[in-house]
């Protein structure tokens, strides 16, 4: 089974905070990480390849520095790593991104299974997985929380829904996205780290994936950013003071209107 796992390098949003005084972002100590959902996608790919036989190629679209993240993927069990990188990709929305990734997958000779994280924590759109499946015309399911079995070219898996889960039969070739519940990503082994040091990361540019330049990056993106602005601050704010008992009494008085409604 040939598996491709799609990975994205993102700013570590956990550490991005809004400075309440200036209402600007504080980036202090923010570094680039592998999108946390993608760590689970990678783990599932490596796990399935080990259990059912096959190879895992880690694929990322991003600037050259994303190569380091791909080395990390090899350290955690991927067999090969491919970086799709070109200045022409900058400003791509999810439509242009899925076009670029689809071209890359085709260039790599396709796959039996493509696994993506549910969404990336910088954009939170959850659109690239489904969009890529659409472009490659693959059987597709989102938010997989458990792969029960792969047998006779069919995956039996559970899809998380708002009110529970669906048990699915997904025929290969397929693409699915994963939620965090699916597994516990491994820590890179020493052997894996040694391998990652030596691995050659294949880099493909726009020409290398046979892309139509008009469909890439900002120009190829139907969505345009009109403006960005700081979220509105909330209205009245009161810090209660005094003893704990006094504060609780004040609070209950203040909440009277809400509680009586």
């Amino acid at each position, binding site marked *: 089974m040939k598996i491709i796992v799609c990975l994205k390098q993102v700013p570590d949003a956990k550490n991005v905070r809004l400075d309440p005084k200036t209402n*600007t972002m504080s980036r202090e100590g*923010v570094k680039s990480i592998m999108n946390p959902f993608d760590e689970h996608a990678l783990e599932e790919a490596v796990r399935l390849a080990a259990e059912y036989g096959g190879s895992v190629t880690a694929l990322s679209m991003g600037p050259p520095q994303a190569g380091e993240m791909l080395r990390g993927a090899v350290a955690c069990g991927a067999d090969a790593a491919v970086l799709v990188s070109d200045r022409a990709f900058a*400003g791509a929305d999810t439509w242009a991104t899925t076009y670029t990734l689809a071209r890359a997958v085709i260039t790599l000779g396709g796959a039996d299974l493509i696994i993506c994280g549910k969404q990336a924590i910088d954009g*939170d759109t959850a659109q690239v997985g489904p969009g890529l499946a659409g472009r490659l015309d693959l059987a597709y399911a989102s938010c997989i929380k458990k792969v029960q079995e792969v047998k006779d070219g069919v995956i039996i898996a559970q899809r998380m829904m708002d009110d529970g889960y669906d048990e699915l039969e997904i025929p290969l070739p397929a693409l699915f996205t994963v939620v965090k519940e699916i597994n516990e990503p491994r820590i890179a082994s020493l052997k894996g780290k040694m391998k990652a040091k030596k691995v050659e990361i294949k880099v493909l540019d726009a020409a290398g994936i046979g892309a139509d330049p008009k469909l890439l990056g900002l*120009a190829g993106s*139907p969505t345009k950013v009109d403006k*960005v602005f700081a979220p509105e601050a909330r209205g009245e704010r009161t810090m209660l003071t005094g003893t704990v008992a006094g*504060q609780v009494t004040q609070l209950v008085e203040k909440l009277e209107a*809400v509680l009586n409604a």
Partner: protein
Amino acid sequence: MLEIDPQLCTGCGVCEDNCAFGAISVVNGLAQVKEQCTLCGNCVDNCEAGALLIEQGEAAVKVNPADYAGVWIYAEFRHGEIAPVAFELLGIGRRLAAARGVQLAAVLMGYDLQDKAQELIWHGADEVFQLDDPGLKDFTDEAYGNVLAHLIKEHKPEIVLAGATAIGRSFIPQVATSMGAGLTADCTDLAIGEDGNLLQTRPAFGGNIMATIVCPDTRPQMATVRPMVMTALPPDKGRQGVVHKLDAGAFNLAARVKVLASVITAPDKVKLAEAEIVVAGGRGLESAKGFALLNELADLLGGSVAASRAVVDAGWIDYPYQVGQTGKTVAPKLYICCGISGAIQHLVGMQSSEVIVAINKDPAAPIFAIATYGIVGDLFEVLPRLITELKNRTL
């Protein structure tokens, strides 16, 4: 590409501070852009000197917007009920349709729909496109996507809205991709701009900034909308509308993925998204046992408990209780946060609550920046007193 005008750049560094990707730095008094730049445009809007510019270029895919008319919403139907977000979409859809002077239609598909289409008309739809077929009993991306794409191609609406639910977020992206249409995820505000385009506003970078997105050159303009953000209109049972009952034979309902079983696991008690009072706990609870106090308070107030991502990740409580960017969005009358520091990821899911009470040991916790009432103190001291006081009050 991001261009920096060396004549105008003052080297003030505001762009550097505002870049979430660390893609700009000021070198020798001049801003320099690095490879990490994603052209998000945040720096351009923040540059008071007007020294930054993003060249938009000519769009590759274009349609004539005049060929498209009408506002559509996708009315999600699962396990015998229309999802509440469908009515919220009709609420905002009516406003958009009025601003554009067009009709508002709903697409309803599934199996055994009975007379649910009528509810959509009562809530604001002028028309309902209804497809009732056993082949749509279970949700599959392929069949649902095919039906919606087919209808969009046939009727050419200018705007298509869907709920940002598990189902909406799963199949709408494929529909948008196949149309060559832009899709904006998780919108919190929608309006019509002066040029008639849909202004789609959503939180970006985990809610640190808001971004307004437009799709000037493609149609339909597609967006998913977070549940509990828009307001549904009260049902008007006198409202008239047209229900188009569609013939399944005209559609491709085949799906490669098969649903073997559909299991409802979220216990009834978790009506978190609908609760008027929510009591939420974070790391300050110290352990899973801390939720006993929260449950007691929530029961007393007739509300629901909720949790931050940190404690769900720690396994203290199940995921259906998670509020935030990667969990549920809630907007109750009263939201009480206990031992939650206030990471942006959590705030995004609850900042529309009418009244927010924060109880936290750390006076510098960011949660206090958005709390209507803040108490600095140990929640294990504050909550028992609050419970006692509330009990006395009701006696």
